[in-house]
C-alpha cells in the first residue's frame, strides 16, 4: 500500500501504476486528465507511469468556466 495525495487529499492505493491506480480510485470510465507532481501525464502514458509514495496526483475533468 502507498499513500499519495489525490486532488489534495491523502488516499491509499495498491497499484503503483497510474492507469491501474485511477481504476482503483474509481475513475475507471470517466473523462479525466491527469498530472503527477505538477507535470501533465497524457492518457496514453498512464500505463507506463509509476507513482511513488507521497506523489501529488491531479485528476481533473471538464467544468464550468468563464
Amino acid at each position, binding site marked *: 500500500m502507498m499513500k499519495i495525495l489525490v486532488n489534495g487529499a491523502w488516499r491509499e492505493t495498491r497499484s503503483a501504476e497510474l492507469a491501474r491506480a485511477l481504476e482503483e480510485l474509481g*475513475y475507471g470510465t*470517466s473523462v479525466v486528465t491527469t498530472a503527477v507532481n505538477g507535470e501533465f501525464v497524457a492518457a496514453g502514458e498512464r500505463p507506463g507511469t509509476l507513482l511513488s509514495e507521497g506523489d501529488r496526483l491531479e485528476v481533473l475533468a471538464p467544468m464550468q468556466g468563464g
Partner: protein
Amino acid sequence: MLQLYQTQLTSRLMLGTARYPAPAVLADAVRAARAEVVTVSLRRESAGERAGQAFWSLIRELGVRVLPNTAGCHSVKEAVTTAHMAREVFGTSWIKLEVIGEDDTLQPDVFGLVDAARTLCAEGYEVFPYTTEDLVVAERLLAAGCRVLMPWGAPIGSGRGLNNLFGLKALRAHFPEVPLIIDAGLGVPSHAAQALELGFDAVLINTAVAQARDPVQMARAFAQAIEAGLAARAAGPIEPRDLAVPSSPLIGTAFRG
C-alpha cells in the same frame, strides 16, 4: 465573418459557462445567444460525484466549439500544465490563457502571460491571452505567436463596462488587423454594443448573463446588442459634435418674414 486562427465564426458573442443557476439554463442561454464558442475549465473530479462528466455531456450536446481556459492559474507552470491537460480532455488546441497576478482585481500577470504564451505558441497551441489594454504587452504577445488578443473591459465580474476607454481605443487603433475580443467586466448589452462600435471584433460574456435574473433573456439581449454594434460600425456612424445641428431643415420654416 471573424477568423480566429483557422476558424471562421459568424457570431461575435462568446459565452462563459460558469455561475448559471442550473445546467438547463446554461444550455438555453447558449442557444439564445446563438454562441458558437463557449469557454470551459478544468477542476478536480471526485470519483463518486462525477460532476465533470455530466457537464461535459451537456456541452457536447450543444454542438459548440469550446475554448478551455486556465482560470485560477497564478504561475506560468500551472498555466502551461493546465493547457496541456485541457488539450487532451477537450480535444482542441485553443486555449484561453489566464495567468492571474492579483486576486482582488483578478488582473492578468502580464509577465507570466507572455512567458506562458511563448511556450504554448511554440508547442502549437492557438493561444487567446487574457490581457490588459497595454499596447506594449500586446506587442509582446503577438511576438510570442498569439494571433488573437483578449483585453479586459474591466475587472472580471465587475460589470463596469469599458473602464479605460482611452486605452482600449488606442489598442484598437494600434493593431487594426488583430482580432481583439473584449473579455471580462461588461455588465449590460449596451457595453457590448459599444465594444463592437469601437471596432472590437467580439465579446466574451459570463457573469452578466449567468447572474442576471433571467439569463436566457439576457443572453439573447447581448446577442442582439452585439449584432447592432457590429452593424453600426459597418454603417458609418456620425461623429459626435459639441453644438446642436437641427434635424428638421430650417429652410422653408413658417412665420419667418
